[in-house]
C-alpha cells in the first residue's frame, strides 16, 4: 500500500480523505493557502505544505504548486477530493508524468466525460438511456410535429441559441407543437438573430437520481445503488438521500447496469457517479457522469457499509475490487443535509465571519441510528469569502426512511452554529415538510414550496405547548437560582410562584407547574399536563429535554423574561411571566418596526463594487441600483418598486455591514 498520500483539497473533503487514510495506516499531506493556515485539514494531516495566496486560482488549482508539494513531501499518490483539480485532465497527466498515482479515474475518462456532447454520444453508444430528441435542425412546423411524435409528448421546443427561458416552448400535442415551433422560431430570430430550433423530450416531475459506480483497473465494475438529490436550490444540492424513495427494484437495476456499462465503455477506474433525470413514470435519462468522489458520497457509504475513499485508494494502488455486485448491500436509509453559510432569511445570501460557536451534534453509531458529521471547520475558525460556503455535511442513518428523518430532525436541533448566517432552520423545515416526508419531491421542490423565500417555520399548537412547558420549567429553575443570591433578608425570601403565562409565536398559554426532584408537571388551562425532565441548568445554550413522551432539543439564549428558542426550524421569542406580569405586559403598545421600504439596505457584509444610479434619478422596479461583492460573488441589488433616489450614502469601494443604508428613496 502507499506510504504517504497528498490531498489536493481543503475543507471537509480533505478531512474526510485523511480519516480513511489514517485508518489504513497511510501518512497524509495537506496543502493550504494563506487563508487556511489554521484550518482543520492542516491540523489533522501528518504534514502540511503552503501552496499560495487565498484565492483558489493562485493556490489550490495551480498544478505546479501541487506538484511542488508532492515533490517536497515524497507523496506517492494524490487524492483530489471534489472540485478544484478533481476533474482536470492536465493534472491527471502531470501526475502520470511524474510517476505519482492519481486517486481517481484515468485522464481519458475524465476528458471524454467532461464534454456534454461527447459524453452523451458515448452514453448512447453504451446503451444508456438519454433524453430522446432530435439534435438536427428542424425545417418547418410539419417536421416539428413529426419529430415531436417520434420523441413522444410532452416535448420541449428549444432555440439552439436560447437561454433564460427565451425561445422555449413546451408542447403536449400536435397543435401546440406547431404553434410552439413558430413562436420559438420568431422569438429566437428576434432575440438571438439565430432561429435554429431543436426538439427534445420534456421531462415532467423531474427527479435527480444518480448511481454510484466503482471500478478497478482489472476490468471489474460495480454499482452501489442510487442517491436521490432532488432537493436543490438553483442547481445546488441541499439534501440527499440513499436509497431513493422513488425507485423500484427493476429501475434501480436498469440504471445500475447501464451505469456500469458506461464506466466500462470509457475504461473507468475508481469511484464515479452517473447522474440521471427521472420522470414521474420512472423513465430515466442520462445527464452526465462525474468522474470524482461526490459531495454526497456518505449516504452511499452509510447504506452499503463501503468506505468509498478507501476503495479509491486501493484501486489507485492497483488492487482488485474485493466487492462483487452481489455483495453490495442496501441496508436502511441515509440522509444528508448540507450545512451552508447562507442566510435563509436573507434569500440564502452567503455569510462570512468567525464561527463564535460551532458544536455539531455528537456522532453516534448504533443499531437504531447513526449520526455522522463531515466537517472542515471548528469553533473559532473563520468562514472566508474565498471558498465554497458549505461548512458541514450532517448525515443520519436508520433502518427506515422515517426514522432517518427523525434522527436528522434531532441532529439538526442539536447543531449549534453562531457567528454567521446558516441554513440550519431551513434544513429543519424541509425535514418537517409533508411532501419531503412522503417522498413526493422533484427538483422544483424548493422553488415550488418556498416561492417567496424562507421566513421560518410556524409551529403547530402541539409543538408550541411542548416548548411552552419546557421553557416554563426552565424559567422557573432560573428564577429560583436568582432567589439564592447573597445579601437577602432572612425570613423574607422571594417565593417563586407556580402559575405562569407563556407567550410565543403570538399564542399564550397559562400554565401551572408542579415540580419534584426529578422534573416538573406543567398543566395547561384545559387540564392537559406535560411532564418535563431535563438536566438543563441556566446558561446552557442547548437544552435537551424529555417533554411528555418525546424528546425536545432546543437552542436557547436568555432574553428579558424568557428565552430565544430555536428548534425545528422555528426561531421564537418565548416570554414566561407571572399572570400579573403578563396582564401588565398586555398593556404595552405593539411597536411597529421602522419602515425600511424607502431604504436600500445592504443585505450582507460586503464591498460596494459599483453604484449605478445618482441622486435624483427616477428608477424602475427591477432596475439595478448597485453591486455588492461578498464571498467573491457580485450581487446586484435591484429596485423593488418605481421611485426616485433621494440620497446615496455609499460609494464604490466602501465596505458595508449588514443593514447599512446604501441609499434612500423619496
Amino acid at each position, binding site marked *: 500500500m502507499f506510504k504517504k498520500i497528498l490531498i489536493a483539497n481543503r475543507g471537509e473533503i480533505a478531512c474526510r480523505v485523511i480519516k480513511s487514510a489514517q485508518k489504513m495506516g497511510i501518512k497524509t499531506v495537506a496543502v493550504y493557502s494563506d487563508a487556511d*493556515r*489554521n484550518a482543520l485539514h492542516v491540523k489533522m494531516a501528518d504534514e502540511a505544505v503552503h501552496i499560495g495566496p487565498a484565492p483558489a486560482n493562485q493556490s489550490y488549482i495551480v498544478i505546479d504548486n501541487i506538484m511542488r508539494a508532492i515533490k517536497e513531501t515524497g507523496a506517492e499518490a494524490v487524492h483530489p477530493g471534489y472540485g478544484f483539480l478533481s476533474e482536470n485532465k492536465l493534472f491527471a497527466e502531470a501526475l502520470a508524468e511524474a510517476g505519482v498515482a492519481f486517486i481517481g479515474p484515468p485522464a481519458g475518462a475524465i476528458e471524454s466525460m467532461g464534454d456534454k456532447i461527447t459524453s452523451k454520444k458515448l452514453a448512447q453508444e453504451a446503451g444508456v438511456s438519454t433524453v430522446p430528441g432530435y439534435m438536427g435542425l428542424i425545417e418547418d412546423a410539419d417536421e416539428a410535429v413529426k419529430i415531436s411524435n417520434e420523441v413522444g409528448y410532452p416535448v420541449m421546443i428549444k432555440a439552439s441559441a436560447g437561454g433564460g427561458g427565451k425561445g422555449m416552448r413546451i408542447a403536449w400535442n400536435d397543435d401546440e407543437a406547431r404553434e410552439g415551433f413558430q413562436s420559438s422560431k420568431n422569438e429566437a430570430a428576434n432575440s438571438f438573430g439565430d432561429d435554429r430550433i431543436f426538439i427534445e423530450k420534456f421531462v415532467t416531475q423531474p427527479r435527480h437520481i444518480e448511481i454510484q459506480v466503482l471500478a478497478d483497473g482489472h476490468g471489474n465494475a460495480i454499482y452501489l445503488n442510487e442517491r436521490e438529490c432532488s432537493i436543490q436550490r438553483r442547481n445546488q444540492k441541499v439534501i440527499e438521500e440513499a436509497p431513493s424513495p422513488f425507485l423500484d427494484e427493476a429501475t434501480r437495476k436498469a440504471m445500475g447496469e447501464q451505469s456500469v456499462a458506461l464506466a466500462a465503455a470509457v475504461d473507468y477506474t475508481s469511484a464515479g457517479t452517473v447522474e440521471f433525470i427521472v420522470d414521474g413514470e420512472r423513465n430515466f435519462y442520462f445527464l452526465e457522469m462525474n468522474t470524482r468522489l461526490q459531495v454526497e458520497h456518505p449516504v452511499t457509504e452509510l447504506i452499503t457499509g463501503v468506505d468509498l475513499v478507501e476503495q479509491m485508494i486501493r484501486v489507485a494502488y492497483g488492487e482488485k475490487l474485493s466487492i462483487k455486485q452481489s455483495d453490495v448491500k442496501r441496508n436502511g436509509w441515509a440522509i444528508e443535509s448540507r450545512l451552508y453559510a447562507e442566510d435563509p432569511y436573507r434569500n440564502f445570501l452567503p455569510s462570512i465571519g*468567525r*464561527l*463564535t*460557536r*460551532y458544536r455539531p451534534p455528537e456522532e453516534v453509531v448504533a443499531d437504531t441510528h447513526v449520526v455522522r458529521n463531515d466537517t472542515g471547520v*471548528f*469553533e*473559532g*475558525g*473563520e468562514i472566508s469569502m474565498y471558498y465554497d460556503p458549505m461548512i458541514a455535511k450532517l448525515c443520519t442513518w436508520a433502518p427506515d426512511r422515517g426514522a432517518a428523518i427523525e434522527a436528522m430532525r434531532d441532529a439538526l436541533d442539536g447543531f449549534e452554529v453562531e457567528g454567521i448566517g446558516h441554513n440550519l432552520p431551513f434544513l429543519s423545515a424541509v425535514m418537517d415538510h409533508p411532501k419531503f416526508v412522503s417522498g413526493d419531491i422533484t427538483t422544483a421542490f424548493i422553488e415550488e414550496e418556498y416561492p417567496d423565500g424562507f421566513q421560518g417555520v410556524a409551529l403547530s399548537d402541539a409543538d408550541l405547548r411542548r416548548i411552552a412547558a419546557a421553557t416554563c420549567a426552565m424559567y422557573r429553575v432560573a428564577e429560583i*437560582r*436568582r*432567589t*439564592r*443570591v*447573597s*445579601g*437577602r*433578608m432572612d425570613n*423574607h*425570601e*422571594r*417565593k417563586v*410562584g407556580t402559575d405562569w403565562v407563556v407567550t410565543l409565536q403570538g399564542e399564550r398559554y397559562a400554565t401551572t407547574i408542579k415540580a419534584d426532584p426529578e422534573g416538573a408537571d406543567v398543566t395547561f388551562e384545559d387540564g392537559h399536563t406535560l411532564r418535563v425532565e431535563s438536566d438543563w*441548568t*441556566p*446558561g*446552557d*445554550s442547548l437544552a435537551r429535554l424529555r417533554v411528555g413522551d418525546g424528546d425536545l432539543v432546543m437552542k436557547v439564549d*436568555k432574553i*428579558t*423574561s424568557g428565552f430565544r428558542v430555536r428548534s425545528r426550524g422555528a426561531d421564537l421569542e418565548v416570554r414566561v411571566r*407571572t399572570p*400579573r*406580569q403578563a396582564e*401588565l*405586559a398586555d*398593556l*404595552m*403598545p405593539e*411597536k411597529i418596526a421602522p419602515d425600511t421600504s424607502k431604504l436600500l439596505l445592504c443585505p450582507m457584509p460586503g464591498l460596494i463594487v459599483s453604484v449605478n444610479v445618482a441622486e435624483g434619478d427616477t428608477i424602475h422596479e427591477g432596475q439595478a441600483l448597485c453591486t455588492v461583492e461578498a464571498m467573491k460573488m457580485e450581487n446586484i441589488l435591484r429596485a423593488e418598486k418605481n421611485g426616485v433616489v433621494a440620497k446615496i450614502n455609499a460609494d464604490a469601494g466602501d465596505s458595508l455591514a449588514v443593514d447599512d443604508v446604501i441609499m434612500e428613496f423619496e
Partner: protein
Amino acid sequence: MKDVDAQLLARREDAMLGGGQRRIDAQHAKGKLTARERVELLLDEGSFEEFDMFVAHRCTDFGMEKSRPAGDGVVTGWGTINGRMVYVFSQDFTVFGGSLSETHAQKICKIMDMAVQNGAPVIGINDSGGARIQEGVASLAGYAEVFQRNIMASGVVPQISVIMGPCAGGAVYSPAMTDFIFMVKDTSYMFVTGPDVVKTVTNEVVTAEELGGAGTHTKKSSVADAAFENDVEALTEVRRLVDFLPLNNREKPPVRPFFDAPDRIDASLDTLVPDNANTPYDMKELIHKIGDEGDFYEIQEDFAKNIITGFIRLEGSTVGVVANQPMVLAGCLDIDSSRKAARFVRFCDAFEIPILTLVDVPGFLPGTSQEYGGVIKHGAKLLFAYGEATVPKVTVITRKAYGGAYDVMASKHLRGDFNYAWPTAEIAVMGAKGATEIIHRADLGDAEKIAAHTANYEERFANPFVAAERGFIDEVIVPHSTRKRVARAFASLRKKSLKNPWKKHDNIPL
C-alpha cells in the same frame, strides 16, 4: 372601631386609585403603566411596604386646597428584589402630572434617608411634569432637598433612576447624580429646557424625542445608560442589574449559585486575535466567554463603542469589565470612551466591585477636535480612576498596548494586581512603523532600510516578553485558559485590603 376600619379601607382604596380611573386609562393609552403597577413589577411579588400613603399637600394658593389627593403624586416605600432590600419611589403622573410639591419631595427624602441609614439601594421611577408651579419656591426647595440627599447617598448606596415619562428642567438633576439612568424608548424624555424654550431662545426647531429621547441620551449625550422597549422590559432589566450590585458600600458584591465551571477551557479563544494586526475582532466575544454562563450586563452599550463597560460574574460573584473594542475606531481611547470608562471604574471602586480590564488599545485618538475638546483632562479621568481604585484589578492584554494608553488601561504601574498578556500582546511605545520612522529618521529615504528596521523593531518589541522581563506583565497566559486564570486571580484577591491616604476628597480632573 368599625368606623375607623371602614375609613382606613376607604382611604386606602382612594389612595390606590391615584388620580382616578380616567387618568389611569389615559396613562395606559400612552403605553405607560401607573406608578403602582411599576412598583409591582420592580419588586418581588407582595414585598412592597408603603410609606406615607396618606400624605397630602399643604398648598392653599390658586385653589389647590380643593384637591388634596392621598399620596401627593408619588408612591414610596421599600420591598425586595430577589429577597434583597431596596427602597423605591415612583412618581404618579395621574396626580397633578406627577409634579413635585414640598410634601412629594419630603416623601422621597424620607425613604432616601432610610436607604442610607439601612444600607439599601434607592430606585427612583421618574414620570413627572416638573415642579408644582402653584407651590413656587417650596417646590424648588423640595428638589434641592432631594439633590442634597442624592449627593450624600452617592457612593454609599447604589442609586438607580428609571425615566418613564417626562423629566424636565431642574428635575433632571436628581437622576443626573444617581449611578445609573435607564429610559424607555418613545415614552420618556429628559432635558433642561424643552423644545419651546429652545425655539424661543435659539430658533432651533427640535422635537422632544430628538432633544431628549432615549435615543439621544443613549447614543449622543451619554446621559442614559440603556434604553428599553417598554415599561415592563425596563423594570425587568433593572431587577437584573440589581442582582449584580452590592446593597451598599460596606458589603461585598453579591454571590449566587453558578453553573459554569471556573476552569472551563475555551479553545476558540486561541483564534480570536487575527493574524493580521490591523484586522479587528469583537472583544465582546471574549467577555462572553470569560464570564459565567455568557451573562453580560452592558452599561452604555450605544455610546463610545470603542470601549465596552459592564458587569459579568465569575464564580457567581460580580466583576466589572472595561474592555477596548477593536471593532470601533480600532479600540482607541478618546474623550468619550475615557469619560465613559472612568465613571464606570469609579462606580466599581466605590462599591467594592473588582475590575477586569481587557486591553487592545493602539493609543489615544489624534486630532484637533480631541485636543480642543480637552482630551488631556478627559483622558486623565480614566487614568485617575484606575490609579485611585483599591478594588482587585486584573488586566489581560490581548493585543496592542501602546504608549500612554498602555499606562492608563489598569497597568501594573497603576497598582494592577494581576497583569496578564496573551502571546499576541505587543507592549510598546507605539506601532513598529511609527517607532522606526522616528528612531531611524536618517534612513527615511531608503525604503529597504526602513523595512529592515521595522522588522527588527517588531522582532524586538512586538511581543509581551520585554514587559514580562521587567515584571510589568506577571505572566503570559494562553487565550484558551483565560477564564480559569482570571477567575483564580480574583479568587486570590477576595481578601485584598488597600487604603489610599486620608484626604477630604480627591481632585479628579472633572
